[in-house]
């Protein structure tokens, strides 16, 4: 049985694609056959973050419209074994996604023996986002410690519990995980940023991890490398912890405590 995981947030720019790439790569590193699908039709970017943009020939929409088969459209990742990317179309718009088409592709992927199907949702609450979450078994809700992101995440949580297949069919609810990204413990300590406790108090879903704000993410995307591959960095370690927790392991939170500034920094500022 393959498990479908949607990476969603409502708000744009919070780290959905970064997370989708690292989460999928992390699962593949653990030996699971994984595919990551870009649902952002018309504004594809997952291919760039995964570093496979020059190898896209056929895309998700081609497969939905049966202009290509899955074997032609799946792009094999060069970093890790057992990881595949299904790119979004760059030329069509979101109406090219049909619910029946999405369901058929997901079923076909399950038939190919994928353990995990990661759906990278577009921002917003329109067709693309609804399609990405519709068939999900679990959801990573990516949230920044910032008012508009928290509000949009709350809205998305409402949709996960009312508009998805599990909700409509009255089955067991989608398992929701809160992933806080761009977290800056120093600013939290100074009282200038919502703390992870604040965000949990408001959204009330279990926390699966905290990714610190870091220049690593930009360095990774510049190179087309999922951030989880940036060996030895806090971001990479934090994503690896997320994968372990997702797979049921206990991991204490790291990189969430403020660092004391050195004497020089205290005297002269940042």
């Amino acid at each position, binding site marked *: 049985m393959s498990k479908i995981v949607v990476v969603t947030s409502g708000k744009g720019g919070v780290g959905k694609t970064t997370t989708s790439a690292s989460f999928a790569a992390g699962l593949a590193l653990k030996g699971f056959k994984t595919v990551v699908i870009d649902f952002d039709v018309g504004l594809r970017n997952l291919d760039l973050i995964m570093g496979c943009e020059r190898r896209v020939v056929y895309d998700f929409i081609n497969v939905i419209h049966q202009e290509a088969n899955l074997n032609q459209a799946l792009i094999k990742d060069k970093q890790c074994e057992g990881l595949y990317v299904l790119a979004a179309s760059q030329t069509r718009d979101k109406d090219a996604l049909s619910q029946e088409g999405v369901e058929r592709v997901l079923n076909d992927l399950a038939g190919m023996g994928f353990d995990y199907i990661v759906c990278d949702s577009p921002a917003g609450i329109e067709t693309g986002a609804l399609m990405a979450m519709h068939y999900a078994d679990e959801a990573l809700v990516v949230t920044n410690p*910032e*008012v508009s992101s*928290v*509000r949009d995440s*709350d*809205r998305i949580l*409402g949709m996960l519990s*009312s508009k998805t297949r599990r909700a409509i069919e009255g089955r067991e609810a989608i398992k929701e995980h809160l992933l806080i990204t761009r977290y800056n413990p120093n600013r*939290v300590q*100074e*009282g*200038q*940023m*919502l*703390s992870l406790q*604040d965000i949990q*108090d*408001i959204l009330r879903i279990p926390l699966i991890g905290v990714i610190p704000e870091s220049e690593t993410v930009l360095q990774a995307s510049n190179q087309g490398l999922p951030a989880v591959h940036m060996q030895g960095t806090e971001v990479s370690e934090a994503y690896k912890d997320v994968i372990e927790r997702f797979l049921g392991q206990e991991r204490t939170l790291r990189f969430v405590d403020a660092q004391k500034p050195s004497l020089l920094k*205290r*005297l*002269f*500022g*940042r």
Partner: protein
Amino acid sequence: MSWLSLFLGEKKQTASIAKDRLQIILAHERSGRHASEPDYLPQLQRELIAVISKYVHVNPGDIRVNLERQDNLEVLEVKIELPEKQR
């Protein structure tokens, strides 16, 4: 923070303001989202009208049934306007 900020004053702590604002707006938005009327309300309203009409002459529009949610508390409000007494 630099030595300059000691003279200019500390930056304002705004995270708690953010949390308070979020809690208020989300309580409001969630109530709009989940608290769609339970499906027994129209039926309840019709039956109430039937029962009350047996004893008092009222117009259907004079009976209002409302469900309000405040945090974990649900309040069912039934408002019946009796006609003015004909003296």
